[in-house]
């Protein structure tokens, strides 16, 4: 079973995302900010990190940079999911190591589509 770490400071978003990923047969864990995500990634090495941008403690963009500098057995795919919908932000995320990018509001079809593109479905 593929695994996913859902990183968002909104509990509601995490609940919605968890439902979507679990329906697609992913096992899920959650983190409320970038720092908590890094701690979990080091231990759990998930296949996918579903990452918000704006969060307290550590933002998603700082988080992805740190993920890419970690020595992991296998680097996760990182999918941003954020209200930062600007062209410049998207390209910034891509240059800093994101694999895919979802602009909020999001739905199950968008998630499914991105996972298929990344070869995870």
């Amino acid at each position: 079973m593929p695994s996913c770490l859902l990183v968002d400071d909104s509990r509601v978003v995490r609940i919605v995302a968890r439902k979507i990923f679990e329906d697609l047969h992913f096992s899920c864990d959650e983190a409320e900010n970038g720092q908590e995500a890094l701690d979990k990634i080091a231990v759990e090495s998930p296949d996918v990190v579903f990452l918000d941008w704006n969060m307290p403690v550590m933002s998603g963009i700082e988080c992805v940079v740190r993920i890419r500098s970690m020595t992991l057995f296998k680097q996760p795919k990182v999918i941003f999911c954020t209200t930062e919908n600007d062209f410049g932000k998207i390209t910034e995320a891509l240059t800093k190591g994101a694999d895919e990018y979802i602009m909020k509001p999001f739905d199950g079809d968008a998630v499914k589509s991105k996972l298929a593109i990344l070869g995870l479905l």
Partner: protein
Amino acid sequence: MTLLAADFEFIAKLIHQKNGLMLTPEKEYLLETRLSPIARKWNLSDLPALVRKLRVFAEPALLEEISDAMTTNETLFFRDLKPFEALKAEILPKLCAARKGTKRVRIWCAAASSGQEPYSIAITLLEEKHKYPDIQFEIIGTDINKDILKRAEEGIYTQFEVQRGLPIQLLVKYFKQDGDRWQIKDELRRMVQYKVFNLLQDPAQFGQFDIIFCRNVLIYFDIATKQKIVERLHSRLAHDGYVVLGGSEAMLGISEKFTVPAGLRSIYTPLSK
């Protein structure tokens, strides 16, 4: 307001003649939801009143609105992914090698809808073009619905639409952002020529094609209509060309003039003529 059986039959037949669309009685709700707004627009009280008007005189403008309203335009970028991978890995290398002489590859997208499919083809071609520097590509996108083709021509998509099927790298590479809308860049837009065309008509005017995408449209037709259309696609196709159908469509029971190349799905080549 429900229709009398005779009224249903009348309008179903009209739509079948115009669009090829097969409407069975259990699809009456489709007539209701899609045609009621048109009835109101034409100052008719309800669907039966619309049918009464049509029985007297089927005004072409009204008929066209009905025809357009009955089309299902659901589509997405890189639908099913596989056909576009096959285009890149199998079809283009073979065809371009075979077209060293004419240096031209012509592609017909026969149910273009709002443009996601022809632009997915165009993007694939642009990404691969460096391998075939001498080949000139031509894409023609047709659809029966002129309003949806206008959207295709504009190439402006909502945030929702660009998040279905399109890899993010291709979004930032080939689209311009305008608020929460995304417009396809001119370089891509210029690659596709759009024309209103009803698949029930003879496509001889378009000449011969090397690849025909005819995806997720045959499903709406009855078997006799499918057979007639596929026969015409066959007549427009180069002897070494390809027909690409939708993921749930097949030639089985429609035509025996095609075969599936090894390793491919929903993609057909003609048996030797």
